[in-house]
């Protein structure tokens, strides 16, 4: 699929979309950690 450029196309999409999902996961995890942490 995508001919001889398949590797290039899928790696570009994987990098960006994977990064976006990772950012969301990290942000939500940080938000939960901060919320559940006891106030000093």
């Amino acid at each position, binding site marked *: 699929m*995508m*001919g*001889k*450029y*398949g590797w*290039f*196309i899928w*790696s*570009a*999409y994987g*990098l*960006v*979309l994977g*990064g*976006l999902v990772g*950012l*969301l996961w990290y*942000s*939500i995890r*940080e*938000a939960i950690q*901060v*919320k559940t*942490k006891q*106030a*000093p």
Partner: protein
Amino acid sequence: MRYLIRLGTVQRFYHFCGTLVPGCLLLGVSIIAYGVIGGLFLAPPDYQQGEAFRIIYVHVPCALLSLLLYLALAFFSVIFLIWRIKVADMMAYCIAPLGAFFTVCALLTGAIWGKPMWGTWWIWDARLTSELILLFLYMGYMGLYHALPSPKSAARASAILAVVGVVDIPIIHYSVYWWNTLHQGATLSLKPTIESSMLKPLLAMILGFCFYTAALLCIRVRTEIVKRSRTR
């Protein structure tokens, strides 16, 4: 104006961001899904670049957002420097890593696109070099923010850096016109020459990325508000 001033208070802004998150996230994910399907499967291959042109659907939104987020970073830094609004400083602080992420993605997807089309991963071309300088500006902002011991002077110094660095934005945009570069001209303009079946997924990806980034920004700002309220 009165509404904007009221929104500047931390508590109101915290709730305002909370109401935006679900809608922006849902819109962002659905529009990006449409854009990915359109870009990968529905848009026809380019007559010169063939299938490789499909990288445009991730490269252009990332590059555009790297510029827009820097403009937003500079805008909030100016507001913070003039009116000392805490929320503006928090917004700028949360925008910086997102902007750096999109700049890295723009550079990497550009390299991935450049290898099959230009025969090289990297070249010291005006557009590429000025985009790399943008990454250094984001990194400089974040580094400076954490380097100074006093939070107030750190916020002020990094805001000044953000405002000074805004000079790089027109250089990035006009680099393809000012210098003889290997990078192609602007993809989007008021009268785009790109075919509509190729243009629609691109516009969808840009819009989807904007909504998704807005949701991420709201989540991060809310977290930052909670963090700072505890360390105060």
